[in-house]
C-alpha cells in the first residue's frame, strides 16, 4: 500500500504546510490533517505493533475507534501516550513516537512472539505461570516489562487544566447530521443549547460521503449548519468528547484546547465540563466494523468508510491500487467517494450474490475495473503492508494484487452513552444489531446511533427529538426545513453481520486488533466455559484497551453466539463503562494536585505562628503548629523544652481550631442537658465545665467544655477532630429530637481565636495583658472586653483559655507571647501538648476516644449524670458494663520510648491491651503512655510488654494509674 496526497480535494488548508516528526523522521502535512492522514499522505503505512504478538499494523479507521495507530505524542511533561493518530490534529512541530516496539517500528525484536502464537492462546498466562511457585518473581519481572501499552510521561506536566460546570435546556452530543438538526431545532425553539462534537469539524459520517445537500458538498453543508448554530446562540464545543453519563444525568465532557503534546495557546490545555441538561439528544453515530478473515490485520486493510474519509476530507488516497469489499449497497457510497476523488479502484468484491446488489450500487461499481459477486475473502498477503488478497468465487482461489483493501463489515450503532444513562438496548433480529430501546431518562438517541442510515433519516430523527424536547420545555417545535440529501444507495443490510468465511479456529483471523484476539481465542474461551460475554472479555481481553472494543465487541459477540448456537441477543452486551474514549488523568484532576489537592484551614494567627517559628502539621484540613524549634532542635528536643516551660514556668499555644458553638434560648440548658451526658442545668452563669458527649451506642463521641455565658446562652467547645460531627449532632437533635425546643444553634468556630496560657506563671502573664480581668477560680469564666476567658486546664497546670475575636486575635497573641517570653516561657505545639495531657491522664479523640470506648473505660464515669440523655440507652447495655472490657491505664517505662499503637502482651504472650498514645513525662522524668488493658484498673504495678512488630521493638512497661502527674490537682489552684 502506498498512500499519497491527491492533487486536489479535501478540506485541509494546503496553504498552511506543517512539519512534524515521527520516530525522528520528518514528515509534512497540512492544517486540518490528523496525524493519521498526514502519515498516510506521506506514504507511511506502518503505524504500530499489536499488543501481544507485535504484528505490524496500519491505520484501520478515521476516528475514535482506531485500535492500531497509537502514538506517544509530545515531549517531556507534555508527552501523551496512546494517542490515536486518527484523532490527533496535526500541528507544526508535533513529535510522535511509535509504541510497543523495540528497537524500531520496522524491526521489532518482539515480533518473534507472533511466531510463537500457537503457544500463546487466550488465557495462557492464567495457566502458564503457576509453577514452579518459586519462579513467580522471575515471571513477574518479565511480564511487567512486557505489559502495558505506551509509556507514561517522565516529567511533570507543565500545563494547566480547567473545569467548568454548565447547564442547558438541551445538550446535543455529536454534530453529525442528526446532531446538527437537533441543535438547530432546539435553538430555533428558543432553548438554551450546548452542542459538542469530538472531532474538529462537524458532519460526522458525511465527511466521507460524496453526498450533496441542496447542491453543496457535505462538508460545506456541515460547515454552514455549524455557523448557523453559532448565530442562533448555540454554545458549540468541538474537539470535545462526551466521555460518560453519570448519576442524575450528569454528562462528563473533555474539551481539548491543545492537541496531545502541544503547548496550549491559552491558559489551559484541556477543560473538564460537567453538564446538566434538561434534555440530551444523543447523536453519537455508528462505527463501521472490519471483516474477519485470515491476516485481516495487514497494514493497508482498512475500514471502507475510513478510506472515503481520507479521500473526501483530507484529500488522501490510501492506495494506488485499491480493492473494495462490500456487503451491502450503502457502502457503495464509499466507492463513489473514492472514485469522485480520483482514486483508482482495482476491484469491488461483493460477498453477496449479484442479484442482491442494487442497481445504484452496481452503477457505481461499474466505474471500478472489476466487480465480483459471491466472493469469499480468504487471506491478505504481505508483510509490513498488504500486497495481495486471496479470494474465491467458486472452488478455485484467486489472487489479486492491491496496496489497500477497504472492507465494509457493517455498522454498529454507538450505544455507550445510552447504556451509561441506564437505557435498555434491544437486539433487532432483522438487522442483526443492538439498538436503543427508547430513550434513557432525559437522553433521547437520534440518527445513526438509533439505527437510522440515510442522512435524510438522520436529519429527520434529530429534528424530531429536539422538537419533542422543545415541547416538553413548553416551547413550540419549529418546522423542519428538511434539506434534501442526495442518497442513491439502498440502506438495506447496513447493520448486518457479514458471513464469516474464516476457520473458527484461525489464529490469524483477528476480531480485536488491539488485543490480538482471534477466532481461535474465542473458540478456546467457549471450549473452556468462558461463554458469557463478560467472561469472554476477561478471558481473552476482547474489548479491552484504549478502543474498548468499538470495532470488535459485536463481532466477538456474534462469534460466541454462533459457538453457543443461540441468538446474539441471548448473549447480551458487556457493560459500557465510562470513559467512552480515554481521558487523561490530568483532565480529571484539573489542577487539584500538589498543594492544591485539598484546601488548608488557617488559624487567625497563622502568620504570627509562622513568625514565631512554628513547624506546622496538618490536622484534618487545619495547619497547626507541631513545635517551635529553635537553634536546629529536633522535634523531641523542642517538645521537651516546650513541655518543661509549661511545667516550670509558662507556655502559650494556639487552640483556635477547636470547634465552638453558641447555644442560646429559653430551652438551651434543657437542650444541652439532653445531648450531653454531663449535667448542664446545674452550671451557673460565669462557670465552665468539662463535658462528655456520647454516641447513640453509648460510647464516648466527643469531649469539650460548656460555658454558661448568660442565663440563656452557652458557649460550647468541641475537639478539633470532631468539630463538624458535633455540630451535625447538635443540629440533628435540634431538628428531629427536640424540634419544639426554643433554642438556636450557631457555629462560631470561625468567629473566635483561642489561646491557652498554661503554667505556674500563667496568671501573671494573663494579668499583664488583661489587667482588668477579675481573679478567676478553677472553672470560672468571664467576659472581658471583647474576649471570653476561663480557668480550664488540659495540661494539668494553672491555665487560662482566652477566646478573642479574629480582628484582635493577632494583637492578643503577640501581647501574650511577649509576656510569656519575658517570663522565661515559650510557645508550645501539639507535641508538647500531647506529652502534657498524657502525663495528666487526659484522653483525646482519635487515641483513647476511638468510637469503641465508654466513659467507664476511660475513667470518665464521674462526668456522666444519671437519667436520660443522648446515648444513655446504649450505655446501659450489659456488654458495656462487662468487667472484661479494656480500661484506661497509665504506662511507664524508665528507659525507652513506648511505641504508640503497640499491642500490650503479658508474659504468656497473650495480648491484653494496646498503647493508645505515648510521650515523655517531663514532670515525672520518664517515658509514659496511656493504654487500654483488660481489667486495667486492677493491674496497676503489673509489667507488660509493648510489642511493636512494625517498629521491631519490645518495651517493658509498668501499669500505673492514668494520672502520672499531680494526681491531687494541687497545681491547678
Amino acid at each position, binding site marked *: 500500500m502506498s498512500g499519497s496526497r491527491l492533487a486536489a480535494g479535501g478540506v485541509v488548508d494546503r496553504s498552511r504546510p506543517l512539519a512534524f516528526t515521527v520516530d525522528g523522521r520528518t514528515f509534512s502535512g497540512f492544517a486540518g490533517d490528523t496525524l493519521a492522514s498526514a502519515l498516510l499522505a506521506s506514504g507511511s503505512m506502518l503505524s504500530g505493533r499489536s499488543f501481544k504478538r507485535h504484528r505490524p499494523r496500519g491505520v484501520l479507521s478515521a476516528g475514535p475507534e482506531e485500535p492500531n495507530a497509537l502514538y506517544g505524542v509530545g515531549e517531556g511533561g507534555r508527552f501523551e501516550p496512546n494517542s490515536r493518530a486518527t484523532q490527533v490534529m496535526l500541528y507544526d512541530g508535533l513529535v510522535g513516537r511509535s509504541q510497543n516496539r523495540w528497537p524500531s517500528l520496522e524491526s521489532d525484536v518482539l515480533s518473534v512472539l507472533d511466531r510463537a502464537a500457537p503457544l500463546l492462546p487466550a488465557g495462557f498466562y492464567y495457566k502458564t505461570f503457576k509453577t514452579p511457585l518459586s519462579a513467580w518473581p522471575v515471571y513477574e519481572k518479565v511480564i511487567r516489562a512486557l505489559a502495558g501499552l505506551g509509556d507514561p510521561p517522565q516529567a511533570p506536566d507543565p500545563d494547566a487544566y480547567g473545569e467548568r460546570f454548565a447547564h442547558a435546556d438541551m445538550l446535543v452530543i455529536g454534530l453529525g447530521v442528526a446532531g446538527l438538526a437537533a441543535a438547530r431545532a432546539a435553538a430555533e425553539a428558543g432553548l438554551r443549547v450546548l452542542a459538542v462534537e469530538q472531532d474538529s469539524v462537524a458532519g460526522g459520517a458525511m465527511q466521507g460521503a460524496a453526498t450533496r445537500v441542496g447542491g453543496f458538498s457535505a462538508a460545506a453543508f456541515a460547515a454552514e449548519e455549524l455557523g448557523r448554530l453559532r448565530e442562533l446562540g448555540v454554545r458549540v464545543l468541538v474537539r470535545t468528547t462526551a466521555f460518560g453519563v453519570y448519576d442524575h444525568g450528569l454528562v462528563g465532557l473533555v474539551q481539548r484546547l491543545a492537541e496531545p503534546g502541544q503547548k496550549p495557546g491559552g491558559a489551559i490545555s484541556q477543560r473538564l465540563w460537567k453538564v446538566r441538561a434538561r434534555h440530551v439528544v444523543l447523536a453519537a453515530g455508528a462505527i463501521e466494523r472490519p471483516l474477519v478473515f485470515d491476516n485481516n490485520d495487514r497494514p493497508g486493510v482498512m475500514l471502507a468508510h475510513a478510506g472515503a474519509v481520507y479521500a473526501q476530507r483530507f484529500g488522501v488516497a490510501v492506495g494506488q491500487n485499491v480493492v473494495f469489499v462490500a456487503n451491502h449497497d450503502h457502502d457503495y457510497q464509499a466507492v463513489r467517494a473514492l472514485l469522485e476523488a480520483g482514486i483508482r479502484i482495482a476491484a469491488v468484491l461483493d460477498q453477496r450474490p449479484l442479484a442482491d446488489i442494487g442497481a445504484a450500487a452496481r452503477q457505481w461499481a461499474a466505474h471500478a475495473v472489476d466487480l465480483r459477486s459471491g466472493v469469499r475473502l480468504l487471506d491478505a498477503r504481505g508483510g509490513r503492508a498488504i500486497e495481495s488478497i486471496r479470494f474465491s468465487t467458486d472452488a478455485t482461489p484467486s489472487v489479486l494484487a492491491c496496496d489497500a483493501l477497504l472492507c465494509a463489515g457493517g455498522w454498529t450503532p454507538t450505544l455507550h452513552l445510552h447504556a451509561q444513562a441506564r437505557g435498555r438496548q434491544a437486539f433487532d433480529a432483522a438487522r442483526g444489531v443492538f439498538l436503543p430501546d427508547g430513550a434513557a431518562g432525559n437522553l433521547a438517541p437520534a440518527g445513526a446511533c438509533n439505527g437510522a442510515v440515510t442522512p435524510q433519516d438522520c436529519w429527520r430523527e434529530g429534528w424530531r427529538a429536539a422538537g419533542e424536547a422543545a415541547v416538553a420545555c413548553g416551547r413550540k417545535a419549529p418546522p423542519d426545513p428538511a434539506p434534501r440529501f442526495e442518497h442513491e444507495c439502498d440502506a438495506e443490510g447496513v447493520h448486518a453481520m457479514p458471513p464469516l468465511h474464516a476457520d473458527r479456529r484461525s489464529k490469524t483471523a483477528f476480531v480485536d486488533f488491539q488485543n490480538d484476539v482471534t477466532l481461535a481465542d474465542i473458540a478456546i474461551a467457549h471450549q473452556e466455559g468462558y461463554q458469557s460475554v463478560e467472561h469472554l472479555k476477561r478471558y481473552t481481553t476482547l474489548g479491552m484497551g484504549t478502543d474498548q472494543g468499538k470495532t470488535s465487541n459485536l463481532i466477538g459477540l456474534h462469534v460466541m453466539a454462533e459457538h453457543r448456537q443461540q441468538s446474539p441477543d441471548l448473549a447480551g452486551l458487556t457493560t459500557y463503562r465510562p470513559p467512552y474514549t480515554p481521558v487523561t488523568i490530568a483532565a480529571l484532576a484539573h489542577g487539584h494536585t500538589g498543594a492544591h489537592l485539598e484546601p488548608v484551614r488557617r488559624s487567625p494567627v497563622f502568620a504570627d505562628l509562622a513568625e514565631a517559628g512554628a513547624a506546622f502539621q496538618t490536622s484534618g484540613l487545619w495547619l497547626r503548629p507541631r513545635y517551635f524549634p529553635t537553634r536546629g532542635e529536633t522535634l523531641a528536643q523542642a517538645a521537651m523544652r516546650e513541655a518543661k516551660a509549661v511545667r516550670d514556668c509558662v507556655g502559650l499555644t494556639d487552640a483556635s481550631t477547636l470547634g465552638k458553638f453558641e447555644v442560646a434560648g429559653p430551652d438551651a440548658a434543657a437542650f444541652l442537658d439532653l445531648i450531653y451526658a454531663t449535667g448542664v442545668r446545674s452550671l451557673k452563669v460565669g462557670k465552665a465545665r468539662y463535658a462528655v458527649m456520647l454516641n447513640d451506642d453509648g460510647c464516648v463521641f466527643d469531649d469539650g467544655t460548656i460555658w454558661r455565658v448568660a442565663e440563656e446562652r452557652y458557649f460550647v467547645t468541641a475537639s478539633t477532630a470532631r468539630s463538624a460531627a458535633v455540630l451535625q449532632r447538635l443540629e440533628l437533635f435540634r431538628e428531629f429530637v427536640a424540634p419544639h425546643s426554643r433554642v438556636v444553634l450557631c457555629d*462560631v468556630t470561625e468567629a473566635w481565636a483561642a489561646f491557652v496560657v498554661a503554667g505556674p506563671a500563667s496568671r501573671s502573664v494573663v494579668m499583664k495583658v488583661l489587667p482588668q480581668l477579675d481573679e478567676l477560680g478553677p472553672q470560672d469564666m468571664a467576659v472581658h472586653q471583647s474576649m471570653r476567658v476561663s480557668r480550664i486546664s488540659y495540661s494539668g497546670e494553672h491555665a487560662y483559655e482566652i477566646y478573642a475575636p479574629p480582628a484582635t486575635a493577632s494583637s492578643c497573641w503577640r501581647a501574650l507571647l511577649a509576656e510569656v517570653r519575658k517570663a522565661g516561657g515559650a510557645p508550645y505545639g501539639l507535641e508538647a501538648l500531647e506529652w502534657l495531657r498524657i502525663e495528666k491522664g487526659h484522653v483525646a479523640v482519635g487515641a483513647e476516644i476511638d468510637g469503641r470506648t465508654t466513659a467507664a473505660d476511660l475513667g470518665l464515669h464521674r462526668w456522666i449524670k444519671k437519667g436520660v440523655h443522648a446515648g444513655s440507652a446504649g450505655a446501659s447495655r450489659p456488654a458495656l458494663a462487662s468487667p472484661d472490657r479494656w480500661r484506661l491505664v497509665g504506662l511507664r517505662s524508665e528507659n525507652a520510648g513506648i511505641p504508640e499503637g503497640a499491642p500490650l502482651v503479658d508474659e504468656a504472650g497473650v495480648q491484653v491491651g494496646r498503647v493508645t498514645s505515648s510521650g515523655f513525662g517531663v514532670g515525672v522524668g520518664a517515658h509514659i503512655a496511656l493504654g487500654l488493658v483488660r481489667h486495667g484498673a486492677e493491674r496497676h504495678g503489673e509489667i507488660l510488654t509493648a510489642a511493636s512488630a512494625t517498629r521491631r521493638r519490645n518495651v517493658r512497661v509498668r501499669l500505673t494509674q492514668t494520672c502520672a502527674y499531680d494526681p491531687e490537682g494541687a497545681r491547678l489552684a
Partner: protein
Amino acid sequence: MPDTCSIDDPDFPVVWRLSSLQAGGDGAQRDAHGLPAPGKAASLQTSRVLWRAPGSWLLIGERSADLAAELTAGKTRLACELTGALGRLRCRGPAWRLLLQTACPLDLQADAVRDSCLASVFGPFDIVIDVLGEDTADIYVARSFLQDFEAALHRALEQI
C-alpha cells in the same frame, strides 16, 4: 467585554446571625420586618441581609448589631455575632458567573439574579453568593479557608 471579571481584595465584614426560636422560622414576622425570603438577599437599613436557612439570616454591615438588636426585640429571635468568621470577596464584571462556574455546580446563568442569595460550593469550599447586581456579586467563605479560596479564585480567573 463579556469575559472580564476582577476580584477585590478580601475583607471581613461585621456579621450577625439572626435565628428564629420557632422551628421552621417565623414567616409572618419575617414579612413584617422585611427579611428576605428563602434564596433571597435584601438591603435593610444600612445592612445587607441574606437568607441562610428557614428562620435564619445573616445581617452584614457596620450597623448590623443595631439591626440585630431591633429584630430580636420581640424575643422570637436571637442573634449571635459572627464578625470575622466570614471573609468576603467582591467579584466585578460581566464574567463573574463564568468565573464561579469553573467550580460551582449551580446554574448561575439562570438562578443568579439580582438579590438572590445562593449557598453552594466552589470546588472544596462552601460559599455563599450574594448577587448584588448583574455585574457584581459578593462571595462569602469561612475565614480559615479564605487564603486558599482566594488563590483558587485567581487560578480560575486565569482559565476563563
